[in-house]
């Protein structure tokens, strides 16, 4: 046990730990992409999608299975995986999107758990123990080799010339690609929701019956919204595999969907740039917690992080439901 005064002793090494903060940035980027889907569903369409982590799991597992078991090349596996995830988006949406908000939330969280339990137990599909797939195709050949080649190329040709190379900056290419992807997607989605299509989504969010009365096929729009979110979940899933260098069902527990909701509300509902801000606001303190020497075991620190997420969620929802960049007039949380 450490003395009381030492409990909050801060270790300032963290400022110079480049590889650590690059890792944090990667996680923030991955969950940013993940949350863009939630933003489209919750912030713009009013769909309570609690199963986003299930789509991320399907994207991650299907991409890996396509390469490891089916033998597709890496770059072909990704579009196939995207199609599979979009298909599941339709499959989940078709029966559930007619349900009332609270039923929908229960149904989607149940869907995500079915996916996770299937990954955990279907050895024929995932081939490993407890939902872990061995990413080694054959001796010395790995699932993510094509990416690692690209990463090496980027390090050699882009980052090395400006002095950002070596062990500390090993993951800088991944960080760059993820954040480029996040920014492009956020920009594209921002454009999309300002289109006539996006205006229909917002009309549905505000008043479903009114949108229907105007002759809009509400169900079809909702389905499109959910399916796009599923696709974004798949992209986040691929990057998660590249970051973790493994695929395991514990990364797809329901709590990670709610990391997305914290990001969503931190950054503000109905704002895609808000997602970028929210994910940074969540992950820096969450990971920075590791540098506080609290005299706790690893398990306790993990528990503390999740308590923190829970508390942030409660307090945000109670006191600042519109978040940092959310618009009060579009505050869809309290209708």
């Amino acid at each position: 046990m450490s003395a009381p005064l030492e409990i909050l002793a801060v270790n300032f090494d963290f400022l110079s730990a480049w590889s650590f903060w690059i890792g944090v940035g990667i996680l923030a980027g991955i969950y940013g992409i993940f949350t863009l889907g939630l933003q489209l569903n919750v912030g713009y369409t009013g769909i309570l999608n609690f199963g986003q982590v299930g789509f991320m799991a399907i994207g991650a597992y299907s991409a890996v299975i396509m390469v490891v078991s089916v033998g597709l090349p890496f770059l072909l596996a990704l579009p196939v995986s995207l199609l599979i995830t979009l298909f599941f988006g339709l499959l989940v949406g078709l029966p559930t999107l007619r349900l009332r908000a609270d039923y929908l939330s229960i149904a989607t969280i149940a869907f995500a758990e079915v996916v996770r339990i299937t990954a955990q137990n279907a050895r024929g599909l995932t081939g490993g123990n407890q939902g872990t797939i061995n990413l080694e195709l054959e001796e010395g050949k790995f699932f993510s080799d094509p990416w690692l080649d690209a990463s090496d190329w980027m390090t050699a040709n882009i980052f090395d010339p400006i002095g950002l190379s070596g062990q500390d900056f090993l993951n800088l290419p991944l960080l760059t690609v993820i954040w480029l992807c996040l920014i492009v997607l956020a920009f594209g989605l921002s454009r999309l929701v300002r289109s006539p299509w996006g205006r229909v989504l917002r009309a549905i969010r505000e008043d479903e019956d009114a949108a229907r009365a105007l002759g809009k096929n509400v169900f079809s729009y909702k389905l499109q919204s959910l399916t796009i979110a599923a696709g974004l979940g798949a992209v986040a899933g691929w990057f998660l595999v590249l970051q973790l260098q493994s695929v395991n069902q514990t990364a797809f527990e329901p709590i990670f969907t709610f990391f997305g909701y914290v990001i969503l509300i931190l950054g503000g509902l109905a704002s895609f740039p808000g997602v970028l801000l929210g994910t940074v606001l969540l992950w820096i303190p969450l990971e920075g917690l590791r540098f506080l020497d609290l005299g706790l075991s690893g398990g306790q620190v993990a528990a503390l992080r999740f308590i923190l997420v829970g508390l942030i969620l409660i307090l945000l929802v109670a006191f600042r439901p519109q978040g940092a960049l959310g618009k009060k007039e579009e505050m869809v949380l309290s209708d």
Partner: protein
Amino acid sequence: MEAGTVPTGAPAASGTKRARAWASENPAKVFLMVMGLIAIYLIIDSGIQELAQKTINGTVAGSYFALGAIGLTLVYGVLQLTNFAHGDLLTLGAYIAYVFQVSQGMPFVVAMVISIVLVALFAVLTELVMFKPMRKKKAGVLQLILMTIGLAFVIRYAIQLFATADQKKLDVNVTDTIDFIGLSIGRTQLIVVIVGFVVLTAVAMMLRYSSLGRQMRALADNFDLAETTGIDTGRIVIFTWVLSGALAGLAGVLVAASVGSFTPDLGFTLLLSLFAAVCLGGIGNAFGALAGGLVIGITQEWSTIVIGAEWKVAISFLVLIIVLIVRPQGIFGKERTL
């Protein structure tokens, strides 16, 4: 079940349209028929002995599912609150019992009673600190749901922070079994079933016949109407939380005792099964939740005849999803509930 209006003829003979109408009028009967068909299939597949044993196991699980589900459905019915933290109230119950029985060395029954009281108090506390102020602010569905989810994580990981994620065991006899006509049930599990059913009966009687129970059901049915008839809604709301918390605490202790070991994940893994029970019985309907809990418990155990036990939780989720798709107002719910 309401009497009358049931055509006694075979529905299949009178055309698909009338059969469908009959089915939607009598969902409980259709459901029983489906369960019966599944039972017949399982008897043919693996014998009546196996099915009977699984049904006994399922009834044990069903008794604590039912206890958990009643609290969940009442809070939903009375407050329109989908409480995702309800599962973690069960976890809290199990760990409080652990603290008082194993760490403090108190008798099991005393620890159980302390656990019931403390979880009930905790539930009331969440109402006073979180949900009542939020209702005053006219919080929306998403706001309230997200708060319960935040609360769920705080409870679950606070327990993990103090008690670690290691498996804990209550000091109960988990090896003795009672055998009769080739079937067996654990001694502790038998006690769990008996306690569970006594409490369930008492709660059902209370809801049905006592003035408090009638007022609670009136609120669950139509809050505003109940309020205008002069029911003291504030009092009933608090009592709903007391009952919900107490039943959750009891259910948590009973799960911990009958399963043997538990971790801080206990309640969250049960939560979706509880939701399945609640939706099956018609959300807000206490008697439905009771029946739904038993059905989910039995269905989960039956499924282990056909596929591995590791899938049984997923089976209840599938039941949940199917019920929501086919009949979101539940097997016992009336059409108008939605």
